């Protein structure tokens, strides 16, 4: 009989600056699938005036040796300018945006609004029987908010995945 032997895993946040060219996202996402790496979340948007450079934030998990390989394999791609492992680098800010639709009337509706206020979630759409709350924060804060809304008429959740940056004055 043969059994599989999984290794201990770590969660890492990587930022990748790339040429904003056709196929780059497929190249990066495909690298992860082809080599059996995990993607927990991935966000991407261009970050320069001329739309030539994009920044991708990837949250991944795996054994430390695999995380190191992911870093090296990403750097090997020609359109990749820079890869920063924020988890390795040290303290960093990681934020996510969520839209949370909650429907209800009466006390539940009031309670949803009250809790939203505590979480600094802002209503961005209102009807007499529903809200869409917008909130940003660390992923676990969003998790808590969504969990509380579940009893108060949660309809739909949309999340961006995290965007992250190293703390302090320097560019990472």
């Amino acid at each position, binding site marked *: *009989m*043969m059994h599989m032997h999984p290794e201990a895993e770590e969660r890492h946040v990587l930022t990748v600056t790339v*040429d904003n060219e*056709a*196929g780059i996202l*497929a*190249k990066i996402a*495909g*690298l992860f699938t*082809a080599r059996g790496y995990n993607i927990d979340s991935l966000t991407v948007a261009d970050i320069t005036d001329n739309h030539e450079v994009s920044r991708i934030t990837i949250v991944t998990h795996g054994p430390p*040796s695999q995380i*190191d*390989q992911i870093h*090296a*394999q990403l*750097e*090997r*791609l*020609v*359109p990749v*300018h820079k890869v920063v492992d924020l988890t390795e680098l040290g303290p960093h800010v990681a934020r996510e945006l969520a839209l949370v639709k909650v429907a209800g009337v009466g006390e539940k509706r009031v309670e949803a609004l009250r809790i939203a206020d505590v979480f600094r979630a802002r209503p961005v759409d209102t009807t007499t029987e529903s809200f869409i709350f917008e909130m940003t924060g660390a992923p676990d804060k969003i998790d808590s908010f969504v969990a509380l809304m579940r009893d108060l008429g949660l309809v739909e959740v949309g999340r961006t995945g995290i965007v992250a940056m190293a703390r302090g004055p320097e560019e990472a």
Partner: protein
Amino acid sequence: MSEERSGANILVESLVRQGVEFVFGYPGGAVLPIYDALFGDERLRHILVRHEAGAGHAAEGYARSTGKPGVVLVTSGPGATNVVTAIADAFLDSIPLIVISGQVPTGLIGSDAFQEADTVGISRHCTKHNYLVKDPADLAAVVDEAFQIATTGRPGPVLIDIPKDVQIASAAWSDAPIQRRQRYAPRTAGSAQEIAQAVEMIAAAKAPVFYTGGGVINAGPRASELLRALQAKTGAPVTSTLMGLGAFPADHADWLGMLGMHGTYEANLAMNQSDLIICVGARFDDRVTGRLDAFAPNSKKIHIDIDRSSINKIVRVDLPIVGDCASVLDQILTEWGSRKGQDLTAWKARVDTWREKKSLSFPANADAIMPQLAIQRLYELTKDRDPVISTEVGQHQMWAAQHFPFFSPNKWLTSGGLGTMGYGLPAAIGAQCGNPDSLVIDIAGDASIQMNIQELGTATQYRLPVKVFILNNEWMGMVRQWQELTYESRFSNSYSDSLPDFVKLAEAYGWKGIRIEDESQLDAGIQAMIDHPGPVIVDCLVHKESNCFPMIPSGASHVDMILYGDNVAGTMDDEAKALV
């Protein structure tokens, strides 16, 4: 001077500007404008293959034997998909290729048009980089960058997909040097600190070994010279991967032979027992390491590699140096100066005891030609011609690696990483194009040769005098061997039934065919092959059940090698079977 030219014309001019001599290709609807631009152009020689896979491997053979990039031209859809295996092969063996594929016109992309395939998507993970060019004005810069990417850093295949309308539309063309952003700049040299540490480690080692690979070949002939120079200073014995054969001369007293699954006993034991492994341009492939937890357990490891992702991928090393093999070896030599290393007498005496195993020896056979003997005779009779040898994949490939010695780089062309059957014949054709005066021999097996047998016609058409030396045992020998060793001799689908008459096949293509059936005919047959000015197939009937030894079975360590005479038939546990 600037003028308007068609995309196809700009492409051809760009290839000429890169010094391209040969284009290996096959026309089709989506590349007709490029073929028209090639028509009558004397500056580029187009070699018309019989199947696009042949074009890819021919370009690989050309590249491997000349050190220059190979260029492939194919049409869209099946033209491009047929060359994917060769692209993947070049990717794993780090061979510089430029593959130009036609594509359906931009307006039809994504519409499932005739002969449309998502070539950029399909080739994305087996190319070093690829492009879909949507504007002829971009072509010159794309080609320029593609050659830089293919040939610098860790070499590899780069694909340029060009829609048909982009080939026809015109753009400004200028002879002036190309202005483009320089975004690819691989690190080529080690830091002073790394070099100093490497020298310190080598000087302190009592049992060092050089473990060299294809990176030394890829770094150019100078890297081989520097390796020899550094070896002379340090005295450490040298082993090599399959891909690195020829970087170090096989008649040197400190040469250990190839290491790994079918490597010599002395090479594998030296690796296992060393206190320092100096890995130069190799990547700790599974064929080399065997069981990882037992791989060189007591040695420190220096790893010189141009590709950072090769380092610590399989085996953790003590000192990684990211850089070009030639540059880093040069740095180490300079830093070494007139230093003296440790006395290696005791270490070399141990190595000699392993050599005494004579692990490459094989039993004599009165009734059949032993395949190893056939290769030894092939070497003896061709050695004064300094031949270029290509192979297919399987037992014959390993026997060639074991029994055909090499003395200089770029003489040995084989599919190492991907293990592509059908590589050898087209690779020999490409090598013969690049080395018109050399004796080029494809050492083949009866099964592999059939995988790109159609390329016989290519050699005929261009009067390329390549030789194909088939070790014919009527089996897919390596599959048969594994089935004997691990599946209790259940030979599932590994018998080469219905083989063609290779002599008649040769003659049908205008080649000379020679059959060798008995050892008494061996030398004369080989000599007749060498003496014939045109292409020759030699169908050498060899002992049918010979196994390739020594062998490290899957799941075993370097110290558990199987040699000739060991009792090995049987089965394996599932853990071992699950390894490739």
